[in-house]
């Protein structure tokens, strides 16, 4: 296994709070995998992101026990080069926008300029990423004139353009329409094909079911489960932990309760159609 990031006995509390936001976390993340992070609001998902990026405690202060390792080295021992290794997309896109650039194009170029990439290379990369994230038409607009959904795509573009190996993305689609949401997920899938490691916090569970490899479930600061997505998303006991499960999984379980013999609890739409059609055929024989 090629472990890219690791948390060893991590407990972290924000300043002036008694209860840790993350408790006794042990976690190994493999390179090139897509991890979905789920759990109710306030369960520690965003804090996990901040820890993995090294923002906690370096920026948020607070108290950290244990250690977070990036490629075997403590994350706090990295300097500025960490920005090139780990891309971070904030939950609230309004936080991501630098606020000092006049146009979306400049906003997306900003990180590359900081990395000292030559101007002619910047232009090409920015144009490619703007195409990929479908924000080309916004190039000349002010970042402050954008809608929430547009801003969310600009925030994502400004991180993707840096081509980091690891992407930590906190609810990238909360302001997006269904079409925009699907397109963000297909962008993330492209990144996965490029062997990027992806850690994604997302409430839209049906999309986690479609795209993620493994799922981490958090509750009150504790990681209560970390397994392959199929195992977690088809386990209805997680509903009691405040976790959203795919609509099709709930449908599958209710059909089973009514006596329809499904071969598995489905977690995606495609799987649901298959197992239900199969069960109906069997029953109606």
């Amino acid at each position: 296994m090629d472990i890219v990031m690791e948390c060893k006995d991590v407990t972290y509390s924000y300043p002036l709070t008694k209860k840790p936001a993350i408790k006794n976390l042990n976690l190994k993340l493999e390179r090139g995998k897509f991890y979905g992070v789920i759990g109710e609001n306030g369960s520690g998902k965003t804090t996990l992101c901040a820890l993995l990026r090294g923002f906690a405690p370096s920026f948020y202060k607070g108290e950290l026990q244990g250690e977070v390792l990036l490629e075997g080295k403590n994350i706090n021992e990295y300097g500025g080069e960490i920005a090139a290794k780990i891309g971070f997309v904030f939950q609230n896109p309004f936080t991501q926008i630098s606020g000092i650039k006049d146009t979306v194009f400049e906003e997306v170029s900003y990180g590359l300029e900081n990395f000292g990439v030559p101007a002619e290379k910047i232009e090409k990369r920015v144009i490619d990423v703007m195409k990929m994230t479908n924000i080309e038409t916004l190039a000349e607009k002010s970042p402050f004139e954008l809608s929430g959904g547009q801003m969310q795509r600009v925030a994502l573009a400004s991180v993707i353009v840096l081509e980091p190996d690891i992407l930590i993305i906190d609810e990238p689609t909360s302001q997006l329409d269904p079409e925009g949401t699907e397109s963000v997920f297909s962008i993330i899938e492209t990144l996965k094909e490029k062997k990027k490691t992806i850690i994604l916090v997302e409430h839209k569970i049906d999309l986690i079911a479609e795209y993620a490899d493994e799922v981490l479930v958090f509750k009150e600061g504790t990681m209560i489960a970390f397994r392959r997505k199929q195992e977690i998303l088809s386990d209805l006991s997680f509903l009691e932990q405040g976790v959203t499960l795919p609509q099709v999984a709930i449908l599958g379980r209710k059909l089973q309760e009514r006596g329809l013999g499904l071969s598995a609890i489905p977690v995606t739409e495609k799987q649901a159609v298959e197992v239900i059609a199969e069960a109906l055929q069997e029953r109606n024989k």
Partner: protein
Amino acid sequence: MKDLILKDVSFSYPGGFLAIEHINMEIKFGENVAIVGQNGAGKTTTVKMMNGLLKPDEGEVLIGDMNTKDYTTAQVSRVVGYVFQNPDDQIFHSTVESEVRYGPKTMKLSVEEEDKRVKEALEITGMEIYKDENPMNLPLSMRKFVTIAAVIAMGTEILIFDEPTAGQDVEGNKRLSAILRTLHVQGKTVITISHDMEFVASNFEKVIVMAKRKVVRAGTPKEIFWDFESLEYAMLKQPYVSRVCRALGIKGNIIDIEGAVEGIMDR
């Protein structure tokens, strides 16, 4: 009765960006309505017309017998409350309670009435336990409920929620459903913009689809979520259970899990 009527409304932002074109809408007093559509379809601009934040370039917006053209935004906002998409555009106070109290305070109500409004709004939204907290220390999803409470406390007969489902978890969505039900029972008109088709399918009696600056269609969730032409045009999708039923060829315009279970078992 304060029906809300948009008659042939068009609007461009300063700078010339045309946001909505020839919008016609009729929302009956006491109706619980969802507006759906892509980002940029004109949803937020349309609802900002309804509370007078924006005034039409062409056409008119009527709230009962009140034409928004003849009133100031402050006057219209006494009748129509609006919860912004980004709660941080709306939060100015250092505690949840003072945030919620601010609106009623400006209305020069009696002390009893003011207290009652604040208490009710905090109760309906479940924000009572946070009343002494600084809103900025609450997560984004909770800050949204603070702004919802603040608008409810204004006591307007018509309320608009702009994407309240964004970033909500299971509990948040349940809380929102409960808020919508309570306001509906109180006889208020509630207009909600949402991208969450599952939430829309199970919480509203009427759905208005917008696309490309116009209204595509209005109807019940059952009508809308099985009108493939409108959905495709507006680039929207059916709820997941409807998609499964469609693929299995199950009839009955199913839009929820309960319906899907019955439909599949009867097959």
